[in-house]
C-alpha cells in the first residue's frame, strides 16, 4: 500500500461529481489563489467559480463582485482554455450580466481561464476591471491558465476525497 499515491487511492472524479460533492461555498485556498491572480495580472477584481446547469457559484474571490450571470451566458467561451475581451458588446448581447452592482458601470477588461474536469469545462478564473485596460501579456495569460489548472486540481481532489470517504463510511455501516 505504501507505493499507492494519494491520487491512486481516490476514485475518478467526473464533472458531475464535482458539482454534487464539492461544497459550493467560499474556500480560503481559492481566495488566496484569487489574490495571487489579482497581483500578477494587475486587475482589481477576481472570481473563481463553478457553473451548474443554471447557476454560477463563486468559490474564491478577491475584491469580488456578485456575478449574477447564469451559466448560459458563458456558452461562447466554454470550449476555450482562455478568453479575453475589452468590449463585451462584441461577444455578448446582454451587457446587463456584466454590469457593476451599481447598475451603471459595465466591465471593459475581462479575461477568463476555464476550469476543466475530465476535459469538460466546469468553471473559470476571471480577472476584470471596469475601466479600459491593455490586454494581458503572454506571461500573465499563462499564469492565469496555470491558476485555473491548479483550481481544477484542488476542486477535483476535494470532490474525489469526499466521494471516497462517503463510500468508505457507508460501506462500514453494513
Amino acid at each position: 500500500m505504501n507505493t499507492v499515491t494519494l491520487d491512486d487511492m481516490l476514485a475518478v472524479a467526473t464533472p458531475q461529481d464535482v458539482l454534487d460533492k464539492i461544497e459550493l461555498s467560499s474556500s480560503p485556498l481559492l481566495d488566496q489563489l484569487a489574490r495571487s491572480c489579482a497581483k500578477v495580472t494587475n486587475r482589481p477584481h477576481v472570481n473563481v467559480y463553478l457553473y451548474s446547469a443554471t447557476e454560477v457559484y463563486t468559490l474564491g474571490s478577491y475584491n469580488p463582485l456578485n456575478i449574477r450571470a447564469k451559466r448560459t451566458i458563458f456558452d461562447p467561451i466554454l470550449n476555450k482554455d482562455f478568453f479575453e475581451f475589452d468590449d463585451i458588446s462584441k461577444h455578448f448581447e446582454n451587457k446587463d450580466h456584466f454590469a457593476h452592482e451599481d447598475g451603471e458601470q459595465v466591465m471593459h477588461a475581462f479575461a477568463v481561464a476555464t476550469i476543466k474536469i475530465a476535459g469538460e469545462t466546469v468553471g473559470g478564473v476571471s480577472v476584470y476591471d471596469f475601466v479600459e485596460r491593455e490586454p494581458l501579456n503572454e506571461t500573465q495569460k499563462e499564469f492565469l491558465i496555470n491558476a485555473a489548472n491548479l483550481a481544477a486540481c484542488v476542486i477535483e481532489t476535494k470532490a474525489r476525497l469526499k466521494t471516497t470517504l462517503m463510500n468508505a463510511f457507508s460501506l462500514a455501516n453494513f
Partner: protein
Amino acid sequence: MHNILELLSQTDSEDELINIGINPGKHFDMLAAMFALATNAEMSAIWLVLKGKRSLIGSHNTPMQLPEPPFLHRDLGGKVYYEPISDEEAAVIDYPLINGELASLRSGYYLDITYKDQKVGYVAMAFNDRVGEPSPELTDTLFSLRDLTVSVLQGRANARKMLGEMKAYSG
C-alpha cells in the same frame, strides 16, 4: 487500531509531514510555474526539508533530478531573500533546464515555506540576469503565492490524514 489524529497531535509539524508523506505532484509543479511566471524566472523549484532531508516536490523548467543546490538557506528571516551570483560562480555552477541544456544563472530569489509555524522547506527561483531586489509589489505577490503553497500543502496533508484514518477505521 491507531487513532491517527491523536497520534499526529503528539508530534511536531515536521514529524507530521514525514508520517503523512507528501509526494511530488502536479499541484506543486503548477505552483512552481506560477512563481516563475510571476517573476519571469528561468526556472523554479519547491523543496521540503524535513529533519534535514531535502526532497524536491515541484519544479518548473528544471528536471526532478535537480542536483542539490550549492546553498542551504534554512533561515531566510521571513523575507524574500535575493542572492546575486558572480560571473565567476555562474560560470562554474551549471543549473539543468528541462530541455537538457545547462544554464549559468546569475541571481535567485528564495522564500521559506512554513507549516504550522515551523519552517519545512523553501521555494527557489533562478534568473539569467542579476534582477535585483524584488519590489514591494513583487514581494507581496510572492508572499501571496507562498501562502497559496502552504494552503495546498495543508490540503494535501489533510487529505492524506483523512485517508489514513479511513484505512484505520475500515481495517
